[in-house]
């Protein structure tokens, strides 16, 4: 019973730790999805309110007509910066690597639409039934500065099938697709994917975090297809040292006024949704729950140990009667408590491993939503061309789904062993307190 009490306490601590670790991993996934691998800082520029104006798919002919349009645009509300800004950032002290990228959304619209005067904002309700109808589909596209540095939305290390871009392919019609997009659309190396009405050859498939872009194309190609010229929407920056990130962010802000400079720490704070809730739960409530459970488990173990000593009153009384000093009896009880603690620790670690596996197996996906200032992730999704106001409204948030796992951190097993020993000593101390107060005459107590 004593060992079981300790085991439950240790098991609970490990479970909470594993969950917290899983949440942290999930957060890391989300941040990578938005941020790019190895990136410490991102620089973006948002459209100044009032200057965006209505965005359209182009001049629609008047009157009801069949249309089919495909556009490749930056995320709503997001503006561009000249590529020379990338060089400016790269030259700042504290910058290790700076790469530019275009975060775009390819939106297709097809069907029949009613006539309207150009410039008039249409209804945002998609008509249905027998009346005018059209369908919209979109996928996310990242223009990637070809680099082996690994900084940016896609690096060579993420390739699972095929290959990464070569430096000679900056303006060629090639693409790399995410494994999930490839599965959804039955794409493989050698297939063709259409971006902005242009067929691109798939040269590789990459494993990217959930929520990252669907299609990756060379930056030059992206600039050509989107018509954005020598511009980027995002600058991905890697600092020379983690301690310099904050200072570098300030420097970039000075060098590029009017831009939004965000660090991974800022982004993490902007995460909301169930992932954030679970994160807060795991880090605050979960920690307290684990501490409380541990204290209660140790107290229960201690009381059970006292009860165990009380049941063995004749045994310990006998040891005192045959000349054992109280100190020697206390040592005996402490040693037994320690042994029980170790047994409880082993059981607790097994319980923790089992619980961690169960959580990983059954845990639902968690959502993470990001604020509007992080436009790197603000992919258009539905919006895009139905007027700036509507587009910007949608740009306010982005939700990413991640699967929660509960990996047991290796260091926690060591801590669990230490806790088990502590628990055993606590239990032993309770028992010893009881044993030390036993009169040797207790040995004469007769058992009826």
């Amino acid at each position, binding site marked *: 019973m004593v060992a079981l009490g300790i085991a439950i306490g240790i098991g609970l601590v490990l479970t909470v730790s594993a969950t917290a670790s899983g949440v942290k991993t999930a957060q890391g996934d989300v941040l990578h999805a938005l941020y790019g691998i190895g990136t410490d800082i991102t620089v973006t520029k948002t459209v100044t309110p009032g200057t965006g104006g209505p965005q359209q798919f182009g001049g629609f002919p008047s009157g009801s007509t069949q249309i089919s349009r495909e556009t490749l645009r930056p995320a709503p509300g997001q503006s561009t910066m000249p590529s020379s800004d990338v060089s400016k950032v790269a030259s700042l002290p504290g910058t290790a690597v700076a790469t530019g990228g275009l975060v775009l959304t390819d939106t297709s619209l097809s069907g029949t639409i009613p006539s309207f005067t150009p410039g008039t904002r249409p209804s945002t309700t998609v008509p249905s039934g027998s009346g005018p109808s059209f369908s919209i589909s979109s996928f996310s596209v990242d223009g990637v500065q070809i680099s082996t540095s690994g900084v940016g939305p896609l690096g060579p290390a993420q390739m699972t099938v095929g290959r990464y871009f070569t430096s000679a392919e900056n303006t060629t019609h090639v693409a790399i697709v995410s494994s999930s997009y490839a599965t959804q659309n039955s794409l493989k190396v050698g297939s063709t994917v259409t971006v902005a009405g242009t067929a691109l050859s798939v040269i590789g498939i990459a494993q990217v975090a959930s929520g990252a872009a669907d299609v990756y194309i060379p930056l030059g190609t992206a600039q050509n297809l989107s018509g954005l010229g020598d511009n980027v929407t995002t600058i991905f920056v890697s600092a020379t040292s983690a301690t310099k990130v904050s200072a570098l962010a300030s420097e970039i802000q000075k060098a590029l006024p009017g831009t939004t400079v965000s660090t991974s720490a800022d982004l993490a704070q902007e995460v909301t949704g169930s992932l954030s809730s679970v994160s807060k739960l795991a880090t605050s409530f979960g920690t307290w729950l684990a501490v409380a459970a541990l204290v209660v488990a140790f107290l229960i173990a201690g009381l059970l140990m006292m009860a165990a000593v009380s049941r063995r009153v*004749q045994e310990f009384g*006998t040891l*005192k*009667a*045959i*000349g054992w*000093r109280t100190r020697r009896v206390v040592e005996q009880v402490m040693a037994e408590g320690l042994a029980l603690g170790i047994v409880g620790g082993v059981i607790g670690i097994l319980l923790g491993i089992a619980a961690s596996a169960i959580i990983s197996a059954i845990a639902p996906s968690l959502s993470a939503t990001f604020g509007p200032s992080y436009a790197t992730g603000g992919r258009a999704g539905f919006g895009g061309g139905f007027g700036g106001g509507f587009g910007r409204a949608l740009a306010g948030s982005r939700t990413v789904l991640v699967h929660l796992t509960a990996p047991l951190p290796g260091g926690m097993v060591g801590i669990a062993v230490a806790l088990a020993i502590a628990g055993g000593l606590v239990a032993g101390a309770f028992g010893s307190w009881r044993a030390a107060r036993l*009169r040797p005459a207790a*040995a004469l107590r007769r058992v009826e």
Partner: protein
Amino acid sequence: MTIEASTAKPARDMRDRARVNAYELTDVRRYFTKNRQTIRALDGVDLTIARGEFLAIQGPTGQGKSTLLSILGGLDHPTAGRILFEGRDLATLHEVELAELRATAFGFAFQTFNLIPTLTAQENVEAALVPFHTPSDQGRQRAKEALDTLGLGDRITHFPSELSGGEQQRVAIARALVKGPKVLLADEPTGNLDEQMRDEIVGVLEGLWRDRGLTLVVVTHDSTVARRAQRIAVIAGGRVRSPEGHDTALKRL
């Protein structure tokens, strides 16, 4: 207060061995408080026990027999009075000093044997040598010799649950004897045994007393056991009575 004792069975020459008293108890009192009531377990006991004497303590249940044995063995402190053991007053000794005396001078045998159930017969006997920090190989050897003496040489690896009541009591006696005590104190040592085993255990105790010159004090209800003692101290109402011989003492019970 009257002290009563009789010498009815001079099994050996007591004149030399009783020259010095093992115990001299003077007005020993032991009171307990339970539910705000004072229980006078011992209420002015005066008693002298000679070295090498075999004394039986008899009396009705709850009259202080075991309390007296506890005090004789340094297991309990008296509320008042003096208990001289070889010139040292047990009433004034600290627990550490009493533990040392229990380890070296006193051996105990209990009605319920009080063996540690998770230890073998040999390990139970070795437990009595723990206070001496005896090296384990020597401890094992001495435990084996003690068990051999009591006819249990072939049961040393057996656990208490694998032994009969008589065998368990013999292990307990071996545990008491392995350290070479001066006094053997037995609390109803045959209380849980049938007649045959009772006779066997009493024979063992009597043999050890005779052969080793021990002072043997046995608390017993059993008149058959008491008759084997040199002297019977009858305790009633927390005091020792009966100066007569065995027959008279037994009739009073």
